[in-house]
């Protein structure tokens, strides 16, 4: 019976023979690579060099050829054939990928974990051939906070925790407050964030006088009982602040001077900021600024007024045409020339302005794409309801257009986050900059690899999370037209 089996043409009649033979050959080929890779034993060493090298590939190829039987009736086998073993070419590619994975696992594992050193806090512990994570451990504070004084770092932590908590309000908002969320995120939240960074992280002078603040708050709450519910929101938006200002400057005639600083908060100049926290600060503010600017220019580019259109086109094409590094160069060396002599803008602020304008041009193009994709009927319908330009755009056009361009906007924001390391041009050192600084420290020479791998992992996690989030957002707001 054996003589009847045609080994050049596997078929269903001899399914078991082919299946056992094929999987045996395939397993041997994988095992050969595995042993070679993990135990550096070459079991085919007796073969001539070239054959020994190709041995697993040939064996695996024959094995996969034997088990490529259509409609075998075994579910797993059919699945395997369908996915990695459709034809000879695919079989070879699959084998190569499996071999590459097996081959690359041991060196990567040993570098990352097995031979790596974690303990201690000097360079001397790093004697193995693996990574020196001690280096990262020792420099962790610098990578996270830059040159920010160690004793003051709780200020950054506190601000970030507070801002993250306040940023997540949207998730917990009940339906009653949902309509205010846009206002909250566009105006109030950025303002709070700025105040946090100004007072806490920077340690800026405190203009706010708590005694007047408390009086104003109590007064406005008492008065608030007499306000109709309809206007309460706007009332609390304006009146407390107005009361505070009136009390302080018009009733008690305080002089407009800084009232000293909060106890214990020392001024930390922006040059000392750095590390990952600076990456977050810059990304956050650029993100907030570039969106409205971009939206304005997108609308400007589609405006009916020719002059506004030309100016918008000029702005967008200018920023899109130049590399960010030259923009930052401009903000560093050329921009001070354009300002009055005694007028000084902090370099962090300059960098934020430069990056915001740069990314705004990209946001504008993305939003324009969304505006163009909307059918004319939407504009005409809104106009026929008697809506003016702003009403039409705010309530009809922009919500739909923005929904369409969520992926594009997410890509622009990702690009923004990935562009932040470029601020080394203006002399600010975020995490990549700090790595380059640490790398040149004479006590810790030769650990460039660990540093870059560490930063790469951090950035990868941030960017990947962002892109996944945007994908979810896209799915959530997807409406079938």
């Amino acid at each position: 019976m054996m003589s009847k089996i045609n080994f050049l043409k596997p078929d269903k009649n001899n399914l078991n023979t082919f299946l056992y033979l094929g999987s045996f050959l395939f397993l041997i080929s994988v095992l050969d690579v595995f042993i070679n890779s993990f135990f550096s034993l070459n079991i085919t060493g007796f073969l001539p060099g070239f054959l020994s090298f190709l041995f697993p590939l040939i064996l695996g190829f024959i094995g996969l050829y034997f088990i490529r039987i259509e409609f075998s009736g075994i579910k797993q086998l059919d699945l395997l054939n369908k996915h990695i073993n459709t034809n000879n070419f695919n079989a070879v590619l699959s084998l190569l990928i499996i071999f590459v994975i097996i081959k690359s696992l041991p060196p990567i594992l040993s570098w990352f974990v097995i031979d790596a050193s974690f303990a201690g806090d000097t360079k001397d512990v790093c004697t193995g051939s693996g990574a020196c994570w001690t280096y990262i451990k020792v420099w962790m504070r610098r990578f996270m906070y830059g040159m920010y004084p160690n004793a003051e770092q709780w200020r950054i932590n506190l601000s970030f925790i507070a801002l993250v908590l306040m940023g997540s309000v949207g998730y917990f908002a009940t339906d009653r407050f949902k309509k205010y969320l846009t206002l909250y995120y566009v105006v109030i939240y950025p303002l709070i964030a700025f105040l946090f960074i100004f007072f806490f992280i920077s340690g800026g002078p405190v203009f706010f006088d708590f005694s007047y603040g408390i009086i104003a708050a109590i007064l406005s709450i008492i008065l608030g009982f007499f306000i109709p519910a309809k206007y309460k929101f706007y009332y609390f938006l304006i009146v407390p602040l107005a009361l505070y200002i009136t009390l302080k400057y018009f009733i008690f005639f305080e002089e407009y001077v800084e009232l000293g600083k909060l106890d214990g908060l020392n001024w930390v100049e922006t040059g000392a900021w750095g590390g990952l926290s600076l990456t977050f600060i810059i990304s956050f503010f650029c993100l907030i600024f570039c969106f409205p600017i971009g939206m304005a220019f997108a609308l400007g580019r589609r405006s009916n007024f020719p002059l506004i259109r030309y100016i918008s086109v000029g702005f967008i094409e200018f920023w899109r045409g130049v590399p960010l590094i030259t923009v930052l160069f401009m903000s560093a060396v050329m921009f001070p020339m354009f300002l009055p002599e005694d007028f000084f803008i902090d370099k962090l602020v300059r960098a934020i302005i430069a990056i915001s304008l740069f990314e705004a041009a990209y946001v504008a193009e993305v939003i324009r794409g969304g505006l163009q994709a909307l059918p004319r009927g939407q504009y005409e319908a809104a106009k026929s309801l008697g809506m003016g330009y702003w009403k039409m755009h705010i309530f009809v056009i922009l919500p739909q257009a923005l929904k369409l361009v969520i992926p594009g906007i997410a890509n622009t924001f990702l690009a923004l986050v990935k562009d932040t390391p470029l601020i080394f041009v203006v002399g600010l050192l975020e995490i990549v900059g700090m790595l380059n600084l640490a790398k040149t420290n004479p006590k810790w020479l030769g650990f460039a690899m660990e540093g870059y791998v560490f930063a790469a992992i951090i950035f990868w996690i941030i960017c990947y999370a962002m892109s996944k989030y945007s994908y979810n957002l896209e799915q959530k707001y997807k409406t079938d037209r």
Partner: protein
Amino acid sequence: MNFKLKDIVPQLITVTAVVLVFGFFTYNAQINMENRGIDFGYGFLSQESSFDVQFSLIEYDGSHSYFRAYLVGLLNTILVSVIGIIIATILGVIVGVARLSPNYLINKFAAFYVEFFRNIPLLLQIFFWYFAALRALPLPQDAEAIFGVFFLTIKGLYVPAFIWQNFSVFFYSIVAAIIAIIVIRIHAKRVQENQGKQIPVFFISIGLIFILPLLSFLIGGVGISFEVPVLKQLATTSFIYEGGVSLPPELIALTLSLSLYTATFIAECVRAGIQGVGKGQKEAAASIGLTPNQVLKLVIMPQALRIIIPPTTNQYLNLTKNSSLAAAIAYPDLVLVFAGTALMQTGKAIEIVSITMFTYLTLSISISLLMNWYNKKIAIQEK
């Protein structure tokens, strides 16, 4: 009255604001320059530059002018961009097609590649290759030859140089081959339209592009020889390779990271393009009896390219602009040579930054004009 006040006022306000901002800037710039005793002008371009550049495609040293330095930087930028674009395109197309493969492993491998390299900042990748990966290479004296002629060392990649005899004949033979191919293509199209016959243009083209240069070797007296780099001792511990062409590690790190990074975006463009062609198109093409090759060539590719090319050109543009990150690892590109060294020496911030930006602007606007023209040409003519 033909115009309305409602139309004029917003435009007037905008223009006034823009003019005011620009006027404010110019006024301040004038005062600042007067105070610091700097005069505005582009005359410095013809002055002697008196700084050296490590790597340049044209002859250059300190005795040449600043304009020559500008050219050196520009050419280096273009060199990196062109090499990067070529590698990124090849890699991107392969990965993009691989992402559509029915093979689960290939598919996931390609997806892993894209997700991995796309989500790490380019600058970090450049630093990684330059400061970490390429620094692990052997010293020139310890380097082992690859195929006997290439030497990959910490000081760069040394490859053999071609030494041509009668290069012009070889060059003209290639030009002749290209012209012949174009003529044959036009002819083949006409024959097919008139008589319905198909001429195997592809094989004729391949034959021509090989045979004509080969003939130039046999008949035209074209000769080629290689100059293999040879190790040379400068001092007791200092070695370099002489002869051949040397590619500095900055160039290698930059092209590697630029092309690996941009390839991920090109791969996504290619994938979107191929997916964008409806399944019905393939089925319809197959049902009228086209062979799989013809389906790909005549039905899928023309439609897919229409989707692929615009975003891919954008990526080429991005790559060119990203090549300015070269300044971070001291590869002498436009930004480093001109906006860096030349600016430090002359102090002419406004002039130099404006020239640099204008150069990039010209580059990208010309490419986008080309793009718009192409887009109009291939757009579906709807009635």
